[in-house]
Every structure is written in C-alpha cells, then in structure tokens.
C-alpha cells in the first residue's frame, strides 16, 4: 500500500514526498493529486512514478518486454496480494521457480518494475521460508537474492538470508 509506494519512490530516486491514502476494504492505495479525484491502484501509481522519474525503461523496452512487465504486475496484484495460506503460496513459488529457470530478471535480461514490485510483494513470503524451501525454489531464491542486492531497492526491509552450501540432495 502506501508504505510500499514510499519505498518505490525512494528506490526510483524521487524526492516528491507524495501523499498516499487508501480506499475500501482491500485498502487500495490512492495517490492524491492537486486536480481531480486522485490516481487509484498500486500498479497504476507505480507506473506513473516510473514515468515521473524518467525511467521508462523500467516498464520494458520492446513491445514484448512491456507486455511481460504488465503480466507480472498483474500477477502481483491478483495472485500474490490475494494469496491466503500455504497452498496458494506453494503454487506461486512453483510457477515462479519454473518461469525463472532460464531468466535472470522477470522480463528476461533487463531489470524492470516487475522485479521491484514482485520483490516487495514476495518479501514477507520469502522471509518465512525454511532452508529446505529456499533450496526447493532455487531459481526464485536466486532471483530474490539478486534483486535484494540491487542498489536502493531493499532499503529498510530485512535482508533474507540464502546460504550457499546446498544441504538437501538435488531434486530436479
């Protein structure tokens, strides 16, 4: 919600100190603007901030990349935020692990807003995983560890530990 958007603002290097509110039961974030009812929705506001920071490449460079970025932003809001319980979490991690097998970033070779918002969304989940689960979802762990080291993304969020030595036998 608002805290995440504040984190995003800082990671984008914006110093705007925007005011955020929430709307409705699901606490959808709202960006108060001077003229009009305000901008509603995490993804909408995030994309707006990216453009204000003049970092449009974070939304994807090619048409294909832009579509993939949108796909993961949508996934974040519909699947990750709506996630309730171990079974949902397991499905998300399994999907993501398969997807990331041949990719360094969600959009393939380039760091985008999809990585940032999926990182923020997954942080509470990743922080609670056991050593065995982190190893099981190895590609997710690799990606997550990479993103959390990206300059200015993690900020005050806790650093999730990933140990280097593989303790569990490989199960491919």
């Amino acid at each position: 919600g608002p805290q995440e958007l504040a984190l995003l603002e800082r990671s984008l290097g914006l110093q705007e100190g925007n005011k955020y509110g929430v709307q409705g039961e699901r606490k959808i974030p709202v960006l108060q603007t001077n003229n009009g009812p305000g901008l509603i929705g995490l993804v909408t506001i995030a994309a707006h901030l990216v453009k204000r920071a003049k970092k449009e490449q974070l939304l994807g460079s090619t048409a294909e990349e832009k579509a993939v970025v949108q796909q993961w932003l949508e996934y974040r809001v519909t699947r990750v935020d709506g996630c309730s319980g171990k079974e949902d979490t397991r499905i998300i991690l399994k999907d993501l692990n398969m997807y990331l097998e041949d990719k360094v970033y969600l959009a393939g070779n380039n760091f985008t807003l999809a990585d940032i918002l999926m990182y923020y969304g997954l942080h509470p989940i990743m922080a609670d995983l056991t050593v065995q689960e982190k190893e099981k979802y190895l590609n997710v762990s690799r990606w997550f560890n990479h993103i959390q080291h990206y300059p200015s993304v993690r900020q005050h969020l806790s650093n999730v530990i990933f140990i280097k030595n593989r303790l569990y036998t490989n199960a491919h």
Partner: protein
Amino acid sequence: MGFGDLKSAAGLQVLNDFLADRSYIEGYVPSQADIAVFEAIVAPPPAELCHALRWYNHIKSYEKQKTSLPGVKKALGKYGPADLEDTTGAATDSKDDDDIDLFGSDDEEESEEAKKLREERLAQYESKKSKKPAVVAKSSILLDVKPWDDETDMAKLEECVRSIQVDGLVWGSSKLVPVGYGIKKLQIQCVVEDDKVGTDMLEERITAFEDYVQSMDVAAFNKI
C-alpha cells in the same frame, strides 16, 4: 577455485552448479568476470545445464557492452567455487601437454597474465602429484530426533538440526515419520568423518535445542 576445463562436460557441470543460485560469476552485476568465463566457453551450454544456459544467454545480451563492464579480467582459475581444486591440465588422463599451453597458444605473444597462469597451473600440478589424498574413514548415520509433542514446529526443529555445522559432517536427506498420537519424529541422514565427528557430540549438540528436541537416537549406523 576455477571451474576445471570449461571445454569439457565436467567443467560445464561445475559452472552450472555454481550458477544455480547466482545471477553472475561475481557479485550482483555483470562484470569482466562474466566476460572472462563467457569467452572460455565454446558453445551455448546444453539445455539440461539450465543454470549455465540461462547465464550464457544473459551474458550474450551484453556482448555489445562487454568492454565497458566493470572489473578486471582475471585468470579463469580465480573464479568459481572456492572449495574446488583447479584441476585444469592436471587431470590424470590428460593426453596432451597442450593443456598447460591452453592460453599460450591462443595469443600471438604470450601475455604476462597467460605466463603467470601457466606457471600457476604447473605449480598446482606438481603439488597435486606430490600429495596423494589420504583415505578418510566415513560413516553414514541415520538419526531419529524426537520432539516434545505434536505441537512442536518440525520445520524449525529440522532447521536447528541442520544448522549444526561441523568440519567432517554433511547433512543428507530427511523425512518425518509418525510415531503415534499425532507426533512425528525427524529421521535425518548424515555422513561423518569418523575421527572428527562422533554420535556423542551429535547427541549433545542436537539435544541442546531444548525447546524443540526431546531426545535423539541413532536409528542406523553404517561404515562407508
């Protein structure tokens, strides 16, 4: 360090395992380290080495910027898993002495770095030849770790057990076995070097996690 011979399947396997949980050879951004290793690879890794392939395709996308990536290219033997002995050119079935000249023959004149690398390799080859590894006595032990009750967090219990890191001890696979009344015990495998780790010490360390562990038994003990 090093990956072994990156032109061989074994070397690529080492690279693959190394890259399973890393996006780059060093650190978290593409650097000359990645370029150095990339240039040592002749063709895209096969699909089953999925981590190496992922890394290869990713670094390939930086081809145009390769000279501007940060860092300084070092000898291949300086990258890779820290615990791996650099065996390039020192393999027991190495047919060609050309291995030692691996870098020398590629360049018109032998560069400083290539000369240093060759000398390093020669020294390693000599030292490897001179010391034969001693045969180490090992045992495979199956431990039963019992919790206090059915409410005990078995995942945390397992983490505690696996957090015991001792020289000569390697944890293996584990499973939860029901013992009745909803209680499950943790059955976990480990391999120990006999003169470094004993079951008494394991029992002491494991039962020290008093919040989770009620007792520990040796379910099976086999000499390897």
